[in-house]
């Protein structure tokens, strides 16, 4: 689903590469934690997958597309294959919860009939079926993040990328988010989650990829956050 071959990224004006010769493969249906200190290259890794950046060298394949040869006008097609969730939710403040979820479908040209079917289904999946008419400011942070996940998942992309999705949330709310991502993963979606939250990583016991200084220093099948040997 995601394959990096000897990928190096050096930002203009910087000597030290943000990613340095990274090789890894994430298969369909996997749940992967991406961990590492700030500046270890996590964000660069995610930005490369979305082709918000291009690698300095190396080959990247995402959802069957070679990003090196992907034409600019085909980038939206790539992004339809990858649902994204952020630490800061990025909901539209003057649209209701339902409208926020429907927004993805609207801009991709789904019919009103399909939208009327999909949105309530998503609200139910994330447990907000009675809050569809609220504005984002009227619900809690954990609920907002669940809406963001619903928006990313409503088009059923094969990959979900979550960048610190629990970074702004209390631990008890984080559990709800992780349950939701786990459920989406069980339905066959590949989930890649960058996180600092050691508790969650230790609890879930999924594949862990650790970056440090742009290198992959650990890739464990059922890992924990801190490497204890």
């Amino acid at each position, binding site marked *: 689903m995601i394959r990096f071959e000897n990928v190096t990224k050096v930002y203009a004006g910087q000597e030290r590469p943000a990613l340095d010769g990274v090789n890894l493969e994430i298969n369909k249906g996997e749940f992967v934690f991406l961990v590492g200190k700030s500046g270890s290259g996590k964000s660069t890794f995610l930005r490369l997958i979305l082709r918000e950046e291009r690698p300095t060298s190396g080959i990247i394949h995402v959802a069957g597309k070679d990003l090196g040869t992907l034409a600019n*006008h085909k980038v939206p097609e790539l992004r*339809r294959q990858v649902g994204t969730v952020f630490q800061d939710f990025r909901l539209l403040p003057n649209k209701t919860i339902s409208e926020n979820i429907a*927004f993805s479908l609207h*801009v991709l040209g789904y019919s009103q009939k399909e939208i009327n079917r999909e949105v309530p289904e998503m609200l139910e999946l994330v447990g907000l079926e009675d809050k569809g008419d609220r504005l984002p400011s009227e619900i809690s942070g954990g609920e907002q993040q669940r809406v963001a996940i619903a928006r990313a998942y409503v088009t059923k992309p094969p990959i979900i990328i979550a960048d610190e999705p629990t970074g702004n949330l209390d631990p008890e709310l984080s559990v709800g988010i992780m349950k939701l991502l786990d459920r989406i993963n069980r339905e066959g979606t590949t989930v890649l989650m960058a996180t600092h939250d050691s508790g969650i990583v230790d609890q879930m016991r999924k594949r862990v990829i650790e970056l440090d200084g742009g290198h992959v220093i650990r890739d464990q099948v059922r890992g924990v956050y801190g490497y204890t040997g």
Partner: protein
Amino acid sequence: MRAGFLFKEVRIGLRRNLTMTFAVVVTVAISLSLLGIGLLSNAQVNAMKDYWYDKIEVSVFLCGTLSESPTCANGVVSADQRAAIKSDLEALPVVQSVFYESQTEAFARFKERFKNSAIAQNVTADQLPESFRVKLKDPTQFDVVVSAFSGRPGVDIVQDQRTILEKFFKLLDVLRNGALLVGLFSVLTAALLISNTLRIAAFNRRRETGVMKLVGASSWSIQLPFLLEGVFSAVLGWVFATGLLSGLKYVVDQKVAPLLTFTKFFAWNQVWISSAILLGVGLFVSVLASLITLRRYLKV
């Protein structure tokens, strides 16, 4: 993106930025009106040219008692000379018709033209020259008549009214060019305002466009609502501009035309032609300004 959702987004965008929408509509209306006035002054100059050039004659003045040119050294034109000039004029292929104006007729016309002036009382019929008024098939061919009859015995001077009118029309051409230039500059101003307004709109809605990019909307569908907002403002401005030009035409017909009977005025269809040109200019400028701006500020 479906039409219903698209128009809803456009409506929200226009309403949320209402003061800017208003400014753009007013600016487009004013600048298109100025350009339209330029186009109508062009139509007016053409209407006047048509009207006047059609009436233009070449006057062949014959020697009278007061003539001083060398060809009149032998005194007043003789009957033979007059008859020869007439038949030679009529023989020219460029000539459509020849009309003889005697001294008496010239005097009558003179009195009519200066009837409220003291000059008329000091002039007698024998002071005015008799002349042939020559109407040409093609008014631009006056040279033929001038070269054939200037310097002929019995002919005082050959005068072409076109040379007099041309000075006047040169002045009108300058005024018309000025009006068109002002119009073009104000349209350019409107284009810059549209561009800046869309830049602000794109900045204000960066959350929406960010989400659109995120979920994989094509750059075309991200830009389309903004583009339509620019086009909508331009079209609304054009409607006002057309209204204004129609109002102008109405005022000209009702108030100006009865006072200035010596010329024709531009017709209603000139208003509609100008309006169509303005719509074209408005659409072209707003789409171009939008595309250039959005390409820069809404990169995927």
